[in-house]
Each structure stands twice: as structure tokens, then as C-alpha cells.
């Protein structure tokens, strides 16, 4: 009797699934932004300026994209110390980003635009809030990888997990840029 042969795979299945998942997440935000467009064309739409701190958070998330890119590079060169530092930094920047968005929410609230206020403000809370959840999901993934890197018993040399995490991280970054541009233009 022969042995079982290895499964034929063209691209790593996790990477493939990630790309489809990103398409799926994009569709959810298309749902939100289309709802926003439909609502905006109706009566009683209150336009206001986005909190300025959103620009700072944009800089933070752009920087974190750079750090995770460098982390991937260091991992491939097996500089594990630098790799660990860089993914830690990326995760911290992710949390800072979420905190900045939260500060933005409190600013909106203090300007008389609470969640239960005008629908244009409610949309900002929901869209930005769901995006924050996706960023925090990425932070959790980075934490898992951080602890994996400290394991001594089992060592992994596969770059797939960090590649998947980096792709996802760039995705939530680009998604935020899209949302920022969209919410600034379509006010």
C-alpha cells in the first residue's frame, strides 16, 4: 500500500482565506458607507467636521504599517530580537490608534454630537467603532505571535503567520485611509 501523498497547494490556504476574508470585510464597510450615502441624500442631514485627532491616529496607523513591514523583514533574516521588538511596537501603535479614535469620540460627544444624536454622528461612531474592533483583532493576533516567539519548547520557522498578520494589518490601515477620505469628502 502506498503512503498518503501531500496535498497539492498553489498558495498557502491561510493566505488565500485571508484575501477572501478581506473581500468580505470590505463588503461590510461598503454596506455601511452605502447606507451613509443613501441617508445623506435625505432630509435633515447635519454636516460637521471630523475630530482633528483622527489625523493623528492616521499618522499612527501609517507608522504601524511600516513597523510591521520591518518586523516581517527581520523575521525572514532570523533577527528574532528585533522581530519581537517590532511586533510589540506595532501592537502598541495599534492600541494607541484605538485610543486616539476613542478620544475623537469623547471630543464629538463634548461638542454636542453624542451617539444618540444626529444620524450623521451616529454613523461616525458605528463605522469608526467597527473599524477599531478590526484593528484590535489584529492586535490580538500580534499578541499571540509575540508569545509564540518566546516559546522555547516549540520553534517555528514558517513565515506564513507573520505574513498573514502583516497583510491584514496593511488592510485595516488602507481601510482606515479609505474611511477617512470618504467621511471627510462625503460630509
Amino acid at each position: 500500500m502506498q503512503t498518503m501523498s501531500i496535498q497539492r497547494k498553489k498558495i498557502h490556504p491561510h493566505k488565500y482565506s485571508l484575501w477572501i476574508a478581506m473581500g468580505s470585510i470590505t463588503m461590510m464597510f461598503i454596506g455601511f458607507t452605502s447606507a451613509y450615502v443613501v441617508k445623506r441624500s435625505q432630509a435633515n442631514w447635519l454636516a460637521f467636521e471630523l475630530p482633528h485627532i483622527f489625523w493623528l491616529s492616521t499618522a499612527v496607523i501609517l507608522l504601524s504599517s511600516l513597523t510591521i513591514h520591518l518586523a516581517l523583514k527581520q523575521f525572514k533574516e532570523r533577527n528574532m530580537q528585533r522581530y519581537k521588538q517590532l511586533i510589540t511596537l506595532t501592537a502598541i501603535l495599534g492600541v494607541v490608534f484605538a485610543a486616539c479614535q476613542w478620544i475623537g469620540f469623547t471630543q464629538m460627544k463634548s461638542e454636542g454630537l453624542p451617539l444618540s444624536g444626529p444620524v450623521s454622528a451616529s454613523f461616525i461612531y458605528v463605522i469608526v467603532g467597527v473599524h477599531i474592533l478590526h484593528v484590535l483583532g489584529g492586535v490580538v493576533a500580534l499578541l499571540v505571535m509575540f508569545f509564540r516567539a518566546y516559546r522555547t519548547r516549540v520553534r517555528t520557522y514558517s513565515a506564513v503567520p507573520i505574513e498573514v498578520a502583516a497583510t491584514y494589518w496593511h488592510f485595516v490601515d488602507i481601510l482606515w485611509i479609505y474611511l477617512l477620505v470618504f467621511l471627510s469628502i462625503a460630509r
Partner: protein
Amino acid sequence: MSNEATLHSQQEVMHGAGAHDHHDHGHHHESFISKYVFSMDHKMIAKQFLITGIIWAIIGAFFSVLFRLQLGYPDATFPWLESILGHWAKGGRISPEAYYALVTMHGTILVFFVLTAGLSGTFSNLLIPLQVGARDMASPFMNCLSYWFFFLASLVMMASLFVQTGPASGGWTMYPPLSALGDASIGSKIGVDLWLTSMALFVVSQLLGGLNYISTILNMRAKGMSMTKMPLTIWSFFFTAVLGVLSFPVLLSGFILLLMDRHAGTSFYLSDIFIAGKALANEGGSAILYQHLFWFLGHPEVYIIILPAMGMVSEVLAVSSRKPIFGYLAMVGSLFAICILAFLVWAHHMFVTGLNPFLGAFFVLLTLLIAVPSAIKVFNWLTTIWKGNINFTPASLFSIGFVSTFISGGLTGIWLGNSSIDIHLHDTYFVIAHFHIVMGVSAFFGMFAGIYHWFPKMYGRFMNNTLGYIHFWVTLVGAYCIFWPMHYEGMAGMPRRYFDYSTWTSFNQFSGLNQFISFVVILVFAVQLLFVFNFFYSIFKGRKMTTQNPFKATTLEWTTPIHGIHGNWPGEIPEVHRWAYDYSKDGRDFIPQTEPLGPNESGH
């Protein structure tokens, strides 16, 4: 037992022969938990989806029996109803609140839990790896998660049936404001929160499953299995998964906004509402917005339900008529066309909501365009069985029944797709008749065809054919007896969703007809229980399968051992050399996909 023994002897051989070759396939002893509960084998997950779906189908169908009792016999009392429904059926008569809860849950359960998870969950899981020649799904763990998210969604939905204020009862579409305001009705309270939670879990389950189906089909096909050599089942599962992955997230976004309206005081869907004489603060919301978000999923959803049935019917018809499928590429092309058009027709559910008539005209055009690929498919099914040497097995009868109901239900779709006729027919029994025949009955027929045909692959035994024939004929005749008269009621203007028509002079003439429909519903329900009995009895006592390929089919799943192993093929995955439909070719009954082309033979 013998299964276990085979698996073990193989594992030993594999261990001896070279451990480096199969390091990521399960060759350790499987416990009860890892084999039957948190299984990562796609074949076991398929069975889990199927049996959960069957349980839900019994509940959902039983609900329809209960509300048909009310519709058929509005003056009668059934004391046993009070013993099962308690204060929801005081004195043996269903209360209006219970009626709306039953109707809502009947729709939710059958559309989502049975015909989405139970149908595509079962057969995508079972057939994709087996027919494309893969050891398992792209990510068996995600596949396992997909089932358990579905299970959680099922638990939450089940729990909502037992809360004091009852389950959600604003209709399966969950339109605001009825669903957005807890004070709107008794069925708008915690029942709706549980409904939304359950559906959010369900969406996660569908996405995890869909990601896996797509990446397995695109990425893990056996050597030689080019896209155009795939059986039509796989094409249909592929397009189903694409529809699900792209449309369910939009539904989720609609649900998130609805939850915000319920609990955070936002006004996405609410505006200028009075409850009990008191004006609410909500301003500037639009209930139509929810309908757009809902139907952007809702319409692809009906194709998510029907495409897997179409794929399985194509396969079963070719196998049982011993002829190649007619127009393979046209079949793939029409699936693709349906998949694209599915995203462009959602507003035909909203013709009478005040939609701009100019915009409506485009949706009419796009809706009527769906008739073209649908007609291509019907033509090809008929030409496939034309002059075929048909084996009338229960599976092939259900496939032929599918073609029949798909035609009769599809034609009324052309009526309803016209916005001007829709002004008269919307929200009448005509609509009920249309979508039950084309989506409900047809999808069930496809599912039954699949179950009868692939049951031996799942359990190594056959289902009983005599019970299968009884099941088919009673269901086919019964389905037409139930839904055909509803067309007349609808054309007369009888609206849907009403609790009692007997006090309404215009529709008094239909009381006999309603009684007849309800009587047939009970009969058909009893025959479905016969099918369930056949299913479970055959798992343990059915006639045993003695050959690997009992239906003499060409596809890869019949090259695997009778008792499936995790990894599907002992030894090499077979190489594919030809398309899946070489029946009655060159004087041979069938040529398996694994057989190389002969020297004088041309591929398809």
C-alpha cells in the same frame, strides 16, 4: 468497527513507509470527541450540518402545520395545542401573537437554518474535497468552527422560542420599526435581540464556511482537475460561497445599525414615531434604508439556497440518465450570470415602498434578465434526460421534480418581476405561492435528491427505495396541491400575514380551499417524518453498500473507500484526465475521470 480497523492498518503502513510524507494528516488515534463532536473531517462536519438541519426542518415545518391549522380551521379548537403552547393557545386556539411568532420563525428557520446551513453546509462540506480531489478543506479547523458557530446560533435561536415574551415575530425580514422598538409589540422584545445575536453568529458561521469552500476549490484541486473538468456541483457550490461571502457582511452591517437603534438610542431607521400616543425622540431615520441593506443580502440569499440544488440536480440527472450533461459550459455560464445578476435586483422586493419608478424600471429589466440563464438551465436539464436511459431512483425522481417546480415557480417570478403587476400582487398569497414553489419546494427537492444519491457515500448504506418513492410522489403532488390554489387566492387579492380571513367577506369564498390546503399540509408533513425515519433507520439498518461505485458515476468521490477515512484516499490522490460527464461514450457506459484518454480519443 471495520472502519476503525481499516484506518488503523493503514496508519501502521503509513508509519512504516515514511513519516515525512504525510505529516499533516490525522494518523493518531481519534477519541469520541475528536471524531464525532469537534471533528475536523469534512465528511463528519457535513453529517453534523445535515442532522442539525433535519432537526430544524422538523421544527420549522411543524410550525407551518400549527399556523395552517389556524388558517384552515379558524373556528375550531384543538385542546392539545394548549398543552404544547400553553398561554399562547388558550382554549385550544392559537393567539394572534403566537401566530405571528410561528410565521416569523417558520421563515427564519427554513430560509437560514435549513436551506442555507443544512443544504449548502452539508453538501459543500461533503462533496467539495471529495469531488475536486483534496484531502480535506483548506482549513479544517475553520471548518469545524463554522459548524460550531452554526450550533451556537441554533442554541440562541432555540432559546428565543422559550422566553416569556416569545420569539421575534415581526416577519423573517425583521423590518423596523416593529423590530427596532421593544414597545412596538410583544414579539419585539428580547426575542428580537436573541434573533439578531443568533443571526450574527450565523453570519460568522457562513463566512468561515464560505472562505473555506472558495479557497479549497480554487487552490486544492487534484492534479489534472482544471476548472472546466470540475463537476457542476462544485461550480454551484463555488458560486454559492461567493454570493455568501459578499452579501452576508452587508446583512451584518444592517443588523449592527438595527442593534444600535434598539439599544443606543440612534435613529438610523426610526423617524417620527408615536407609541401609545407618545411621540418618540427619534428623528431623521429611514426604515427603507434597512430594506436596502436587508435585500442586498436577501436576494442573493435565494440563490444561495437554489444554486446548490441546481448543481446537485445537474449531476444526478446526468448520472441517472446515463448521458453527458447537455451544454456544460452554458451551465457554468448561466450559474455565473445568475451570480452576477443576484446582486443587481434587490430592489424588486421594494417596488411598492415608494421607490423611484424610474429606478424601478431598471430593476424590472435586470430581474427579467434572470429568466435567460434560468431558461438555459431548464433547457439543458431537459435535453440531458431527453432520450436518456433513465434509472428512476428516488434521487432522479426528485431531480426531475425539481425541474418541474423550478419551471412552474420560475414563471410566476416573471409576473412578479414586473413592477406594474406587482402593485396588485405584492403581499398577497400569489407571492407566497411563487417563492415557496421556486425556492422552498425546489430547494428541498434538490436537497432530497442529494441525500438519496450521496447517502451511501456518507454512511456506507442505502436508503429504502420504496419509502423513497412514497416520499417523492406524496411530496410532489402535495406541494402542488398546497401552493397551486394560493395563486388563485393571491390573484383575488387575498393578502398574506393575516390571522383570520373568516370575518372578511371578500375572502369567505376561500374557506373551503384553505381547509383543503391545511389538510394537505398535514399529510405532506407526515410523509416528511417518514423520510426522517427512513434516513435514521438506514444509517443503522439500511442495505449495505458492497461496491465503491454503486451508481456507476464518473466523479472522484466514488473512487474513495466505502468507509471513508480522514484524508479520503489511502495512498495517492488520483490524477484527473477527463471531464466529469463521459457517459455512454464510445460504446462504454461510463468512463471514470481518473482514466487517461485513449490514443484515438479526444478530450471534451
